[in-house]
């Protein structure tokens, strides 16, 4: 089903053939996919393009995905990072989740599984954004509620308003 507005996703994968395949697939299912093959560009492009989800290979230009994960979450904690691994080790998987990875996908990538994971990642990103907004504005909301509550009489009407109609 076509989405109303394409959502952007970053693919940071050093192997061009894998990157192109993932891009083609993700665009086919309605996302706007941007490939990045330079480690130094990932955070900048993610922020500039307002991408909520990043797919990153576990090793990109000798940089560990978990280091990139740290950098991404430091600039925007709402971003969901999916790490691709080709040599699955339990300790690596557990470590990646402990550091805040949204998911870990083992290569060769099962595209049906990736579709489901990316979908969940965008849902989580939206939830993260709402949570971040509410947390950041909690004091303002409390103040507003206090003011509104104080302005009500015992019947729940605004003091001074003519609500008896």
């Amino acid at each position, binding site marked *: 089903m076509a989405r109303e507005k394409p959502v952007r996703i970053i693919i940071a994968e050093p192997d061009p053939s894998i990157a192109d395949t993932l891009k083609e697939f993700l665009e086919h299912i309605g996302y706007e996919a941007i490939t990045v093959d330079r480690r130094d560009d990932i955070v900048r492009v993610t922020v500039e393009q307002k991408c909520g989800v990043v797919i990153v290979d576990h090793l990109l230009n000798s940089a560990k995905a978990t280091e990139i994960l740290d950098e991404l979450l430091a600039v925007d904690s709402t971003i969901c990072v999916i790490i691709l691994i080709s040599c699955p080790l*339990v300790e690596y998987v557990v470590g990646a*989740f402990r550091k805040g990875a949204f998911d870990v996908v*083992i290569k060769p990538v099962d595209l049906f599984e990736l579709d489901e994971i990316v979908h969940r990642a965008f849902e989580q990103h939206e939830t993260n954004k709402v949570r971040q907004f509410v947390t950041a504005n909690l004091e303002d909301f409390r103040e507003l509620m206090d003011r509104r509550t104080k302005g009500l009489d015992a019947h729940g009407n605004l003091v001074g308003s003519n609500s008896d109609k």
Partner: protein
Amino acid sequence: MNQHSILVVDDELLIRDLLYDFFTDQGWDISIAESGEKALEILRSKKIDLVLTDLKMPNMDGLMLTSEVRESYPDIPVVIMTGYPSVDSAVSALRQKVSDYIIKPFNINELYKVVEEKIKETQG
């Protein structure tokens, strides 16, 4: 000292006893269950701050128990322990939002730190 309430689920008596003795010595309230089914009974009857469960158990394994806990008690953190770690079970567990996946044999002091930290995170 905070008296946290945790539920230890393991089909191995030795592990249940070890964890019961250790956490009781810390002044915590420990419930123990030898199966997932028994664990769900306990969860229905008392307030639990965290579930610490073995992965590989007969009938209801740790992942099935986690799924039940997530469904009925979404605010209770679950920590999985396993002597048979695998990438598949780790990914499955962590996708179910378990709080951690601990490989046996574990250092009990490190386990204590993990459990205490997860309870604190949940309780804010």
